[in-house]
């Protein structure tokens, strides 16, 4: 989830980065007769450019550690000094191209080559295969951000400790016990409190009274009778 946040930050950087960076140059070296021959045989090449992370984060020798995998390594491309790449010998079809770098993550791209050799690149959407969000071809691949492999260790902070519900539960009552009596020492507040107390005070009928009365009533009459008898004997 922090990834997404990171992504936005990186994108901002990259915008500036892009302005400085030389605009994309098409690679010429591959334009030769063989390739043209191959085209007629239905072999195409996917080309584009990989951008490294923004300047302070650019890993040294990133070109050597970056690879391009088409369809999970069926075809492989390597990155040249300037970041450009070509994946060779691809027959027409639909492919997923991913940039592999151990430290940075890139978005996957789906590249479709029709039988006439027309290219279309779009965002990978496995769920809605019909939804097409096109991306420019030749590809320009920018890092989404540094790949976060690790969890960040929680650090002990006093605020965490204090706002812990357990601590709150223990200390708040303590505070109340300590402070409330002090407040009550003030005679005026005492009186106010009493008033409030008398307001809420109302007579509750005592059940025990009723029961005692009820039971005692009968027993008392008996008692009385006994007494009476005793008296008579006397």
């Amino acid at each position: 989830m922090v990834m997404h946040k990171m992504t936005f930050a990186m994108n901002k950087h990259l915008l500036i980065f892009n302005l400085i960076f030389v605009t994309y140059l098409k690679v010429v070296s591959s334009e030769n007769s063989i390739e043209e021959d191959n085209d007629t045989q239905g072999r195409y090449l996917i080309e584009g450019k990989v951008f490294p992370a923004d300047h302070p984060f650019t890993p040294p020798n990133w070109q050597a550690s970056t690879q391009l995998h088409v369809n999970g390594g069926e075809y492989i491309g390597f990155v040249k000094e300037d970041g450009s790449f070509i994946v060779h010998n691809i027959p027409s079809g639909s492919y997923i191209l991913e940039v592999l770098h151990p430290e940075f993550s890139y978005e996957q791209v789906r590249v479709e080559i029709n039988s006439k050799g027309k290219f279309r690149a779009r965002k990978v959407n496995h769920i809605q295969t019909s939804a097409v969000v096109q991306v420019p071809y030749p590809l320009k691949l920018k890092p989404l951000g540094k790949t976060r492999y690790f969890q960040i260790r929680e650090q002990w902070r006093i605020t965490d400790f204090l706002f812990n519900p357990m601590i709150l539960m223990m200390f708040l009552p303590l505070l109340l016990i300590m402070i409330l009596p002090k407040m009550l020492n003030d005679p005026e507040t005492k009186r106010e409190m009493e008033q409030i107390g008398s307001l809420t005070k109302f007579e509750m009928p005592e059940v025990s009274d009723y029961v005692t009365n009820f039971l005692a009533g009968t027993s008392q009459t008996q008692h009385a009778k006994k007494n009476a008898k005793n008296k008579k004997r006397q």
Partner: protein
Amino acid sequence: MATNKLQSKRFKWSLDSSKCSKLSSINESALPAPPAYSTSGVLSSGEVAKKTDASHLIMKKSWEVALAPIKQVPMNLFIMYMAGNSISIFPIMMVGMLFMRPIQALFQLNGTFKTVENSSVIGQKIVYIFGNLVNIGLALYKCQSMGLLPTHSSDWLAFVEPRVRQEYIGGGIMFS
């Protein structure tokens, strides 16, 4: 505690008045009230004075004790409602309290009624036990609604032993 104090005070007061009950009955209408004698006090004292029997007061006390658990029921219900059905330390503590209090009370049954030993308190005891049982019932209900009672087959799942296999199989894809 406060009630006891008050009662004892009242008791004293009523004893005093009982001593001169004859006197008061004679002079009640005729004589004006002595200074610092409040009418309300007289009224109550008069009320008490009517039931001068100490055993009656003991009865009343005993009934108060007997009814205390039942009086707790609405409070317990409220606590139960407030505690919620989630399983965390405070609800568990509350449930523990709900159980502990009536059980302890039941164990100390005779001790509780010792103060009123001179009269027969079987009725009170029954009511007292009933009240505590109601409280235990409430606690059980709470446990049930919290899912703490092992009433479902899933609660015993952890004790289901893996079945002993009667056959063993081995092999795989042929090597040649």
